Structure formats: structure tokens, C-alpha cells
């Protein structure tokens, strides 16, 4: 990773750009799409983007994973920030829980109305 500097801007654009792109794509799906499952997919794509951003802000150029394996006890100074990683762990699990509840609501809506499209479920129009 010696030449990291040289490609830094590419990597930055790659990480931040794709994370922001994910958020925007998800937002688009939630706002435009009419099918409930598509909306939930949109939500989980937004979540994915946010998680990527979260890990990205903890990354340090040329850093190593924050694990003290035998032999690298002296690597403290090179380790990436462990806190965002811990927070993302929590966020991923919470995101899964919310997705599960959302999908169960979709299933119930489908049973009531025999459709999963917003434009055909009256009370969901807003």
C-alpha cells in the first residue's frame, strides 16, 4: 500500500461516491416505487449506504484491523478506529430487525388487500 497517496482520490470517490449513490438510489426507490417490497428494498439499500459511510469514516490510511493478534501488539499506532465498527455492528442488527417487521407488515397487507401495490391500497395513499 505504498502508493496509496497516488490513488487516494480514486478511492475516496469510490467509497464516498458509492455510499452516497446507494443512499440516493434507495431514496429514489422509497419515494417513487409503488410496490411495497420495492420500498423495503429501498430502505435496506439506504441502510447499506449509511453503514458503508460509517465504516469509511473510521478508516485510516494504511491502517490495520483493530485486533491484537500475537506478534502485532505494537501495532496500536497503525490501527483503524474501532468505534465506528462497533456502532455499525449494532446498526446492522437493528436494520435487520426493522426490515423483518416491515416485511411482516407487507405480508399482512397483502393478505388483507390481495395486492402489495400502494396505489391499490386506499388507505396507504398519502
Amino acid at each position, binding site marked *: 500500500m505504498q502508493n496509496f497517496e497516488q490513488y487516494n482520490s480514486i478511492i475516496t470517490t469510490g467509497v464516498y461516491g458509492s455510499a452516497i449513490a446507494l443512499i440516493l438510489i434507495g431514496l429514489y426507490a422509497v419515494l417513487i416505487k409503488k410496490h411495497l417490497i420495492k420500498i423495503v428494498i429501498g430502505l435496506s439499500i439506504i441502510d447499506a449506504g449509511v453503514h458503508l459511510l460509517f465504516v469509511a469514516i473510521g478508516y485510516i490510511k494504511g491502517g490495520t*484491523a483493530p485486533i*491484537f493478534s500475537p506478534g502485532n501488539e505494537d501495532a496500536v499506532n497503525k490501527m483503524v478506529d474501532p468505534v465506528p465498527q462497533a456502532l455499525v455492528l449494532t446498526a446492522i442488527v437493528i436494520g435487520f430487525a426493522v426490515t423483518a417487521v416491515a416485511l411482516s407488515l407487507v405480508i399482512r397487507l397483502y393478505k388483507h388487500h390481495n395486492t402489495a401495490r400502494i396505489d391499490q391500497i386506499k388507505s396507504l395513499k398519502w
Partner: protein
Amino acid sequence: MKKVLVLVLLVIVGYFLTDTFNLIPFGENRIGNPQDEQTVAGYYLNNTVEKTSVANTVTAIVVNYRGFDTLGEVTVLFLATTGLGSILFRRKEDEEEIERINKPSSSLMQTGSRVLFPLIALLGIYVFIHGHLTPGGGFQGGAIIATGFLLMLISYKNFKAGHTMLNWVESLAGITFVSIGLWGLLTGGTFLENVLPAGELNNLISGGVIPIIYIAVGFKVAAELTGVLDILLNIKPKK
């Protein structure tokens, strides 16, 4: 019309986010020199080995420094399972023919999953037992075990995932977590305090209560996720 509005909104949000993250350079060292302990992260990196004997700093943060978050997170999963149960609940009368939708799967599938299941479960258990030494831990191991149960649920029509066992594992793991927390409180310390000796770095038995909590989290997560899958797979198909 709506599409145009949404696109305008997307442009605004995109601009806003790009603008914000332009001010936060990627890959920059924000935690300072760990020895200075200027930031929380620096403190963690500098002290974790010495104070908790946990090799994986992320585990130390998740289970010990921010253990309260993890307790909340396990609760979120538990509540999601409970909520799922109440949302998809069937009355007795429309329960005449609950039959898993699956056609009985092929014997290849059945044999395959019977062979694979113990291996997957073993991998999951390995992952969460070594959570304080290597990457991985309760959530990861629990999720891996849940995928093993998924295989069984799909290939065996009548595999009920042992509801009794599931209930017991779920409750006992949760009780263990909270009880360890209360143990700290009872012995005059604080909630979730690490009451056991830290031990030696890179030993399987080290880190005090951290591995115990992470194993409890692993079982809890496995049970909750299996519960979610079980509820979802048991939905009566529409005619």
C-alpha cells in the same frame, strides 16, 4: 410531476451529502496518537489489552465499554420476534391446515442439510466462542447458526425447530446477559461491570465476563433469528 420533484429532492440531498463529506477527508487519522488518549478511540486502543485482556478491540467495545448498547440491540431483536409474532398471528379458526408450503424436498437436500447442519452450527459456535480473540462474535456466530436452522426448516417439512428448545435458549441467554449485568451491581460495582479476572491476552479463557456475554449474545441471536425465520416460513400460503 412527482418524479421531477423527487429528482430535485435527490439532487438536493446528494449535494448536501457530498458537501458535508467533502469536509470529512477519507482515510484521515482522527483518533490522534492512541497514547495521548485524546479521543475515546485512542483510549480504547491504548487500554483494551491492558485492562480487559481482549485481543479484538471491537469486541471489547461492543461487549464491555458499550455493552449497554448491545443489551439494547439484543432487546430490539427480541422485540422484533415478538412483534412479528403478533403481526402475523393466526386465530385458531383459520389454522385448520397449517402446512408448510414446501413440497417435501428431495432426499438429496435432506441428507445434504443433515450433514451440513452440524458443521454450520459448529462454525457458528466457533465464531462466537473466539469472539474476543478473532474477528467475529455473538452476532456473526448467531446469524451463522440461524442459516443452519434455515436449511433444516426448508428441507424438513415437519422440522419445527424445537419450539421448546428455542424458547429455553432464547430466555436463558437473555437472562444470562442481564444477570451478569446485575451481578456487577450486586457486588457493589456497576451494571455490566467486568467482575471476573481479565486473564491473559490471547487465551481462550480470558477477558473476564466478555466471552460469557458474547456466547450468551450468540445463542440469543441464533434463537431470535431462527424464531423470525420460523414465523415467516409458517405463514399459510394464499389460495
